[in-house]
């Protein structure tokens, strides 16, 4: 046997960023950069191409104002940095493929205008169809949208111009932490369709400060607690169910402090929504902590309900949802509607608890019934943002606000989407999953049909102030959530230095039966287009197999064997909140194996039907 399949080693994003930063700082220290001759590095952290860092020294400590000149006056983005002698200043809000004029002004001193040329963004960048608002309304804030299909997270200004974009698939929500940093998922997929290794805490320039890894990975949502610890939605990837757990992680160590397993309060299979499966029985898509009641609210798409648990005891407090079909013993947890109009939410996303205890969500309305015979087709359906007032003493519920129903199927998202609460009468409603097939609301998932000319997708993000729409962004594609954020904030916008990798990956689930077969001593044939990408804590196998082939990857070290079954069957998913990693060719397979739990050197082999092939690759999983 000679040769091997395609192999690459990928250093972590943190390592690559550190190398880039070290190079930038070394050059800066070696040079003599002043405001007349500043050093400028575009995209020094590799993942935010519309950012730059300007570096220079001043003789005395002085504050500096940086202004990225807009294409018109209202488009200026300005920030004043605190006084210093050594200035390492993030420049945010550059336009793509443009000679950006950036002013640097010392407090009561010199002003210098520099030009920063940026490259065009990739062709997959989300296309803004329209943005209707006023610069006075949005001011220095941007509308950020995060991916649900193959486009990546992007931010738009009041004109619909792109002013921020990330070029790696960090998916699910973009949260701003109280220290000003962003919290997003990593770009590291650990299991299809969208289970990610953990979270990045990063600056708007893309500089990662902390990478949190979790044994069960992350999906959908996270929440910063008042003490700074993080609630993260996760699961036990070694169990038979998914998307039904939440953990609290320590911000400094990444260690898990507390775990909530929804199987402790609900029985899988009860209260099923139209999309529920035995594996994805709850489909937790949001978490919210309410300090006043010391409770957690979770949105479960596949039970058509939002549940509330006591933070300390984990006991079930209440359930918001249509009680039809739930078992008798759960009915006392449900509310009784009072006053008209009132409608329950179905397959909802993104629960929010307002300061006065009201509960909001994006009511996707998918199927809009608990009774199969009454399911609504998508083309006849609607989605809405909704706010409920609940009385937990009398167990009554009142619908106090809604928006979206009046827009019918053109605002309907069977999946994803969110609402945001800014103040009384002031909300965001993001319907990010609008899908059409031949012009009519699509009943399937566009992620499975990417590239089909008959499929078109839309995302509508709007803001309502006292029942008036004051902003409406329409973008081609589907986007998981919308968020309104400023590019700069009042705390430290960029801190150089090493990042931390916290927490740990889990042991990848093995298949209990290993196929005993001798190797044919041939390398896996080229027709399978197989590749292995190794990282310091795992490796990822990719290949293309025909439907119905039996495929198992094995790791072998002498008599020690580990087997990982790879499905080549068509995957009938009923929920696909992030289709970013779904391949256009449904024969493609991806398997990620963590090094956790393994020790020493393992030969990687692949069984395809009746042959066991060599890959020619040995993976080092650390000291035996």
């Amino acid at each position: 046997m000679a040769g091997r399949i395609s192999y690459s080693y990928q250093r972590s994003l943190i390592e690559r960023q550190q190398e880039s930063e070290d190079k930038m700082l070394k050059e800066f220290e070696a040079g003599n950069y002043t405001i007349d001759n500043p050093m400028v590095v575009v995209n020094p952290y590799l993942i935010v191409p519309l950012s730059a860092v300007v570096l220079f020294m001043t003789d005395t400590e002085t504050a500096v104002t940086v202004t990225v000149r807009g294409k018109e006056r209202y488009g200026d983005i300005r920030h004043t940095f605190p006084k210093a002698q050594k200035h390492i200043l993030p420049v945010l809000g550059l336009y793509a493929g443009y000679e950006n004029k950036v002013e640097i002004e010392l407090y009561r001193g010199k002003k210098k205008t520099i030009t920063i040329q940026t490259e065009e963004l990739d062709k997959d960048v989300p296309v803004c169809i329209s943005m209707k608002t006023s610069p006075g309304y949005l001011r220095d804030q941007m509308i950020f949208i995060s991916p649900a299909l193959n486009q990546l997270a992007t931010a738009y200004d009041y004109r619909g111009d792109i002013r921020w974009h990330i070029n790696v698939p960090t998916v699910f929500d973009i949260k701003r932490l109280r220290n000003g940093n962003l919290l997003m998922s990593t770009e590291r997929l650990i299991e299809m369709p969208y289970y990610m290794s953990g979270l990045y805490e990063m600056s708007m320039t893309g500089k990662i400060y902390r990478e949190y890894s979790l044994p069960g990975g992350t999906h959908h949502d996270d929440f910063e607690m008042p003490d700074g610890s993080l609630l993260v939605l996760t699961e036990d990837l070694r169990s038979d169910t998914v998307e039904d757990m939440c953990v609290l992680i320590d911000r400094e160590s990444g260690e898990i402090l507390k775990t909530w397993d929804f199987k402790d309060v609900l029985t899988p299979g009860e209260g099923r929504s139209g999309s529920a499966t035995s594996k994805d029985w709850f489909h937790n898509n949001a978490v919210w902590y309410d300090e006043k009641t010391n409770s957690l609210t979770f949105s479960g798409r596949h039970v058509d309900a939002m549940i509330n648990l006591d933070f300390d005891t984990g006991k079930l407090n209440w359930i918001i949802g249509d009680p039809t079909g739930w078992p008798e013993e759960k009915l006392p947890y449900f509310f009784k509607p009072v006053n008209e109009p009132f409608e329950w939410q179905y397959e909802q996303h993104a629960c929010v608890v307002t300061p006065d205890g009201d509960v909001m969500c994006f009511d996707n309305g998918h199927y809009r019934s608990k009774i199969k015979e009454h399911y609504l087709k998508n083309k006849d359906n609607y989605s809405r943002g909704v706010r409920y007032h609940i009385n937990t003493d009398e167990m009554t519920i009142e619908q106090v606000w809604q928006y979206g129903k009046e827009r019918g199927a053109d605002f309907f998202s069977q999946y994803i989407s969110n609402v945001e609460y800014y103040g009384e009468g002031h909300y965001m409603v993001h319907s990010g999953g609008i899908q059409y097939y031949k012009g009519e609301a699509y009943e399937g998932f566009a992620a499975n049909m990417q590239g089909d000319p008959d499929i078109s997708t839309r995302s509508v993000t709007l803001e309502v102030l006292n029942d008036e729409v004051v902003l409406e962004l329409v973008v081609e594609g589907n986007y998981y959530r919308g968020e309104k954020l400023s590019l700069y904030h009042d705390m430290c916008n960029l801190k150089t230095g090493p990042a931390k990798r916290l927490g740990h990956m889990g042991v990848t689930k093995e298949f209990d039966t290993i196929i005993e077969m001798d190797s044919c001593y041939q390398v896996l044939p080229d027709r399978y287009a197989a590749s292995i990408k190794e990282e310091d804590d795992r490796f990822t196998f990719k290949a293309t197999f025909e439907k119905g082939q039996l495929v198992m990857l094995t790791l072998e070290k002498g008599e020690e064997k580990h087997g990982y079954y790879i499905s080549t069957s068509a995957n009938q998913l009923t929920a696909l909140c992030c289709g970013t990693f779904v391949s256009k060719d449904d024969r493609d397979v991806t398997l990620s194996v963590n090094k956790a739990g393994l020790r020493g050197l393992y030969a990687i082999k692949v069984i395809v039907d009746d042959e066991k092939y060599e890959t020619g690759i040995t993976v080092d999983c650390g000291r035996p």
Partner: protein
Amino acid sequence: MLKEITEKEYEQYRGSSLVLADFFSSTCGPCKMLSYVLKDIEAQYGDSLIILKVDFDENKELVEEFQVTAYPTLILLKEGKEVERMQGLAAKPAIIKMIEKYKEEK
């Protein structure tokens, strides 16, 4: 015991104390994997458990009789009556757990 059978051959096992029927297709990856799992299970139980493999595409009357809609499907029959069903590729511990539940009842 593990054996692939036809509709006709099934008659001799109908009413047996405990039968695990595997409805499979030769065009299905999970079915192929399940056949290795069942070999493992056979090694554990020997003749105390009858495992019958039924080709989904070749035995339509049995497919209809047991209302099998997808493959692989495992059906556990106790004295001819269905007592448990598993759809999709199941791992060995889950199958053993199911068998043990009804073996104990003997």
